[in-house]
Structures are given as structure tokens and as C-alpha cells.
């Protein structure tokens, strides 16, 4: 089985895997970083969002062979103490209901705020449109992204 060198949350991992194995499952089942969630496997829900070289990326669509040499950040590595401004805002607004989609939401929001630090409401709505929340915590998500942008 081929070997891949991955840089995840500033740690290097040498992983043996089929080259078409999605990064999502490498993270979850091989490296035990289970914060990144599986929702659809086809890039439609955003639950599996991670940062690849700073960009919000669907890890269910990124094959491990394509992830080599990239700087990958998962929810576990977003901040050292869980206090990234987006995480703080999520806590202040008490966003989660079931919580399952929230890692993906946070990763999308944090990458977005890096490119647009004072977004309008409609920019936030556009940016977050790709992340499904089945519990429909959308009002709170929108509010938390806004709050984070002010931090």
C-alpha cells in the first residue's frame, strides 16, 4: 500500500493508505482525529470541512494522494486552547443543537473570515450556504459569524 506524508495541525504523519482514500477517512479512522465529520461524502453538506493551505475544503472529496505537501488544519488544530475567535463566538451564542455539523460550520466560517474580516449579513449567508445544519441552528450560526468578525 502506498505511503503518504501528511502535515496536519503542524504535525507530520506517514500514512499507508489507498491513494483514493478521502482525507476525511484518513483523519477519522487512521489518525483518530474524529472532529471532522462525515455527512454526505459528496461535497454537499460541509460537515467534513477542513482548511487546506488556509482554504475551506471538503475533506470527503480530497484524496489522500492530493493532500500530500499541503498544510492541513482540522477543528482539533484550529486553536491550541479552543479559543479561536470563531470558537469563542460559537460558545457565546451557544450555537450547537445536536452539534454534529458544527465543526464544519466553524471551519467554513474561520476560513471565510480570513478573507473577509467585516462581512455583511448577506455575505455571511452566502459564505455559509454550503454547510447544512439539519437542526436548523442557522440564525445562531449567522449571529456567531457576525460576532466573531468583531473579535
Amino acid at each position: 500500500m502506498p505511503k503518504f506524508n501528511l502535515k496536519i495541525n503542524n504535525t507530520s504523519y506517514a500514512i499507508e493508505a489507498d491513494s483514493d482514500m478521502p482525507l476525511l477517512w484518513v483523519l477519522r479512522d487512521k489518525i483518530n482525529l474524529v472532529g471532522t465529520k462525515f455527512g454526505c461524502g459528496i461535497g454537499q453538506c460541509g460537515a467534513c470541512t477542513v482548511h487546506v493551505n488556509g482554504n475551506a475544503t471538503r475533506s470527503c472529496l480530497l484524496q489522500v494522494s492530493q493532500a500530500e505537501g499541503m498544510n492541513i488544519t482540522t477543528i482539533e488544530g484550529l486553536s491550541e486552547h479552543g479559543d479561536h475567535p470563531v470558537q469563542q463566538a460559537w460558545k457565546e451564542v451557544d450555537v450547537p443543537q445536536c452539534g454534529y455539523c458544527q465543526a464544519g460550520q466553524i471551519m467554513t466560517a474561520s476560513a471565510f473570515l480570513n478573507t473577509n474580516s467585516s462581512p455583511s449579513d448577506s455575505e455571511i449567508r452566502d459564505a455559509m450556504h454550503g454547510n447544512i445544519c439539519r437542526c436548523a441552528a442557522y440564525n445562531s450560526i449567522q449571529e456567531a459569524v457576525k460576532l466573531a468578525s468583531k473579535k
Partner: protein
Amino acid sequence: MAASKPMTFSRRSFLKSSALASGGMIIGFNLFNACKADVKPPVDLSQLNYNDFNAFIKISEEGKVTIFSPNPEIGQGVKTSMPMLIAEELDVAWEDVYVQQGKLDTENYKRQVAGGSQSIRYSWEPLRQTGATAKQMLVNAAAARWGVDASECSVSEGVITNANGETLGYGDVVAEAAILEVPEEVTLKDPKDFKIIGKGKGNVDIDKIITGKPLFGLDYKEEGMLYACVLRPPAFGQVLESFDAEAAKALPGVVDVITIGQKIRDYRAQGKSNWTMAMSDTDKVVVIGKTTWDAMKGKKAIKASWKTETPLESTETHNQALLDLLNGNTFNTRRKDGNVKNAFANADKIIERVYEAPFLPHNTMEPMNFFANVTPEKVHLVGPTQTPEAAANVVADLLGRDIKDIQVEMTRMGGGFGRRLYDDFVYEAVEISNTIKKPIKMVSSREDDMTTGVYRPSTKYKIAASIKDGKLTGYHLKEACVNGNMYGLIPNFFPAGAIANYQVDTVSYKSNITTGAWRAPYTNFLASAEQSFFDELAEALGMDRVQLHMDLLDNVKQNPEANIEYSPDRLQAVLKLAVEKSNWGNTEEGVYQGLSVYYCHNSHVAEVADITMENGIPNVKRVTCAVDCGIVVNPLGAMNQAKGGVIDGIGHALYSDFGFNNGVPQSNNFNTYQLIRMGQTPKVDVHFIENNIDPTGLGEPTLPPIGAAVANAIYKATGKRLTKQPYMSNMNVENSVVG
């Protein structure tokens, strides 16, 4: 201090305490069962026995409180709100409370179920009594040490103070308190003295959620665990004929390929059944992999052929069958007041409409999955289920094991909405582990999850009303539903009791598609139908929509034989509040409002939707929601639940569609099945009625009314009555008959 309410309960009722070997005190309690006279809570924490007690409070010598909370968490917030009830009466600072999910009690626990918005309702008094009792024991211990009367002591945030101003912390007296008698009578606080209940408390798992810690079933792992994906028939009505696993077995990550199904058939052959077993008993092919991906990949490599065993159904079949039933005369009458027939015969005018809704999958964000490890010693089960007790009982039967061997642990659940009331995935996991004698986790892909669901059944209503001399004289609702009908008390919901001649008839179509409870079962669409109908009715009567409701509810109050489930006063109050807060009738140019008011799950709700039309497409801008669910235990959680219910309701009324073609579900993932997304969501303003009535459900009741509020607003904007969900797919259809 306000006049508080002393509560007496029998000593043997549900509480026992003891001292912990490690120091501190433990109080075991059983919410819904009397403990046996001889049971004792453990002295060692590792021995927590959920058979006699389904929950425990531990108070350490440092004064820290740990609550082992029993109810499963599906996102409705009970893991936060139930401990809040205990902490309130125990009089400790919420910050000093640590909440841990308890394990399943397989024997005695009656309601370890998250469903029907009932968790808070049933536990409201027992949990508060538990907290109050523990507090009383601690106070008694302190008073004994001081040699004063307990009634001279007061408590604030875990510190007991006597008349001389001396203080003792809970931790200081916990060892003495632990060996005291459990008092028979305790005083519960007056709601206006609440310090924790009614104050917004954040989700107790928030830190873990926002940092991605393992919490959910899908995150659970054990040494040596393998992953299993199950290939089930592609169409309802088909069974496995044969399969070829050669290509799958050749994959390096595939460990084994097996079939399951025999255990379910054996169980049924013994004449047994259980409502949580919503599944077919055909053989299914299981691929065991080293990772989830390996198992998924292996499953795709299986070549299977299927044969048709029962007729393959399609959406057209269902539509026609349900319409035929509605037009037929094979109904069960669920409620009959007065004489509808006469009222219609004498009417000046009759209005009649048919309302239609499709099947719906639950689509919890976390797909179905479960861990099982069947060994000669025990059966260890871990994962997201809303009905652990039923699961344990069925598993014991399936495997022919003693119920004591079955250990179920619940994880946090990535959504429920009714899906995890059914345990088909638990039974599959158990059979797989039993066959290969290894710990496994069964994982469904989204496609598996969506195409082998336990769906909200497709339903149609025909509602007719008679008008005589400008007055509503009769109301006749007929329901035709796939696999079952509205149950129990629903026929006694509004407008029952308000109209002299009132009748509810139901008829069911038997289908081979698995169906079941879906968030706010039956009312999730019934409310849409009825509250759309009332909009039309008000128009036909030439009446203001609000006035019509107020008048009808006044009728109920005058009707001594109303035999109803709801409170007309509380419905009127939420209606008034929604009207006031939404600025009903005074909108800006281009904004259209629709109203809906409904009672279900013991709560009363009124909603106003504000919409605009953009290029012929309705855009829901704002929803004003007035809710009476009694005392709001956790306003922060309640707000989330209420808003989520509204937006969920809009999504499914407007966008989500699910059909079948020759037994095959027509959508299997989020590229073809539409769930509401942020760009489609309104701002939801929720207003709670403030009262001191015991709390009722909140996980469900804001969902049912919203469909009609939106449909009624669309009518104002376009002049079109929408009767078929999802509305966006049926914007141009009018299937009504107005006579």
C-alpha cells in the same frame, strides 16, 4: 420568601443515599419507578448501578456536584436542562455542576427515551424533589452539628448559614448527611425564586463540540474494532437472490463478507415483534473493512441480484390510492360531535380542499451507526439511540441472552427527529458482531441512510366545512395515510370543541415501505393542512382571520362538553402575542403575512410568516413565533429549539420531496434531496408566554404550524392556495374544489 410548595412523597418512592468510600455522598434516584426496599446506592463510583437507580448525584467533599444524567441527548438540550432542575433545588452554583451521561438501566427505567418532547414534562417534579431532598439532608446534617433547628438555616450556592451567621459548605457536612434518613417531605421553591431555571444556560458539551472531541456514535472506537457496511435491497419489496463477493474480497482493506438476516427471521418466526424493529428481514450482504472507507469501497464492489417479493410501489400508486381512499367510505371515525351530515345538507356553502404531503426521510446529520461487541461474557453496545431500553430487550431476545448481559451506552446523537426511536441499525450491528465474533461498528453512508429509512408517511387530508347564514356550522376532516393514522388524542386538538358539528375520519393504506415517527408525528402536516384551510374559511366567511380564531376559541370556553386537549385561553394568548409582536396587518409595501396557530405536544404556538416575492419565488424574511410551553427551564436552549423547529418546518414544507419509483427511493443524497440552507432562512423571533405552569414540550411544537403560515402568506402575495407539499415544487398546482 414566597409561599413555597411542600411536597410529600413516600420514603420508598425513588431516592436512596449513601456515603462514598472515596469520600462524599451519592444519591441514587429512579425517576419513574419505586426503588425496591432493599436496594442501596453504591459506595464505590465504579459500581454505579443503573438497574436500581437510573441517575445519581454525587457531592464530593470539595462541594463539587456531579450529575449523572439519564436521558439521551439528541440535540434537544435535556442533557443541560434536566440537571438544571436538580441544581436549582439543590441550591448550588451552576458553575459547580458537572454533568455526565448515565448508562442505560435495562430493567427498571421507564422513560429513557428522547421523543415526543416529553423528557422535561415527566421529570419536572421528580428531579426537583431529588435536588430538594439532597439539600434538606445537607442542611439537617449542618443543623445537627451546630445543635440548632434545621429550619433556622438557609442555603445559598452550596453554603449553609445558621442564625448566628456561622457557615458550612456542602462538602463539610456531606459525610454526615450521607448517613441520615431520606426526609419524607421537602419544600420545593416558588418559581419566582428560581436562580438557575429560567436563566439561559449554555450547552454542557459546548467545549467538546467546538474543539472536535469524540462525542458522537460515529466517533466511538475500541481496540480491534472493524467497520461494517451493509448492502440492503435497492427497492422496497425486493429481497436478496444471490451475490458475488469476489471483487470485494480482493480489496486489501476488506476483511470479510458475510450475510445477516437470519436472526431477525428467527425472532419473527417465534411470533415476536417490537415496534423498534422497523426493518425487513431479508438477507443483507455485509462488508467488513479495516476502515469505514474500506468497508464502503468493498460494498460498492459487491455484485448482487435481487428478486421482487412484494409489489413495487411508486409515488403515483400512493397518490392514486390515497385519493381513492379519501373519496371512498372505508373510514374509521375518530371523533364525532353533532351531525356533520345534516350540517352539510343544510349548508348555504361548502368549502372543500385536499392537502397532500410526500414521504420524508429524517436525514439526521449523523448517519445511522452503532457499535456492537458480542462476547460470551456480555453484549456491549454503544451509540446513538433514542430507545436504549427497547433495544436491549430485543437484543437479548435476538441472541437468546439474559438481559443482564446486555450493556447499552448512549453517545451524543447527531440529530434524532424520530429516526433513532427505531433500532434497526442496532440489530444489524449485533448480528454482524455475533457472526464474526469481533467488535464492529456498523456505519451507514448517506445513501444507505436516505434510501433505507423509516419515513414520515405520505398523507392526504380532505377537509370540508359547511357555512349557513354566514356562520361555520360543520367541519369534516378525512385523513388517508400510508401505514397508519393520527393517533390518540390528536382528534381532540383544535378545532375540536369549537364547532358543533365536527367529525374526524381516518383510513390507512398498507405499504411495504417502512414508515414511522418523524418530528411531531402527524401534526407536522396536519397543522399545515388545517391552518391553511382556516385561512380560506375566514375568507369565505368574510371574517378577519384573527377574529375567526378568537371567536371559535370563545365557543370552546362556552362548551362544557368540549372534550379537548388544548387550552382555549392559552391559544388565544399566543395568538394575541404573535399578532402584536409581528405587527400583523401593518407591513411594509411588498411584504405579505400569513398566520397559523396550533396546539400539539402539550404546547400552544402561534406563528406569523413575513414573505416577499422575488422573481415569482417566495422568500421567507421573518417569522414571529409566540410559544406557551409553561415555565421555560433553559431559555437559551429553548430559543434554539423553537427557532430550529420553525426553520426545519419551513424547509420541509417548501423544499424537501421524497418519492419512489418501483420501490426505489428517488433521492439518495443532498445533491438531489433538498434540505433548507442558510440563504433560505428567515430571522425567527421567538416570544415565550411567561407563566408558572409546569413545563411542556418544546422539541416539536414550533414545527407544525409554520407550513400554513408560509402558505397563507404566499396566498396573500399571489392569490394562489398552496395545498401540496413541498410548496416550491407545486407552486403552479391548484388541486382544490370550491363549491
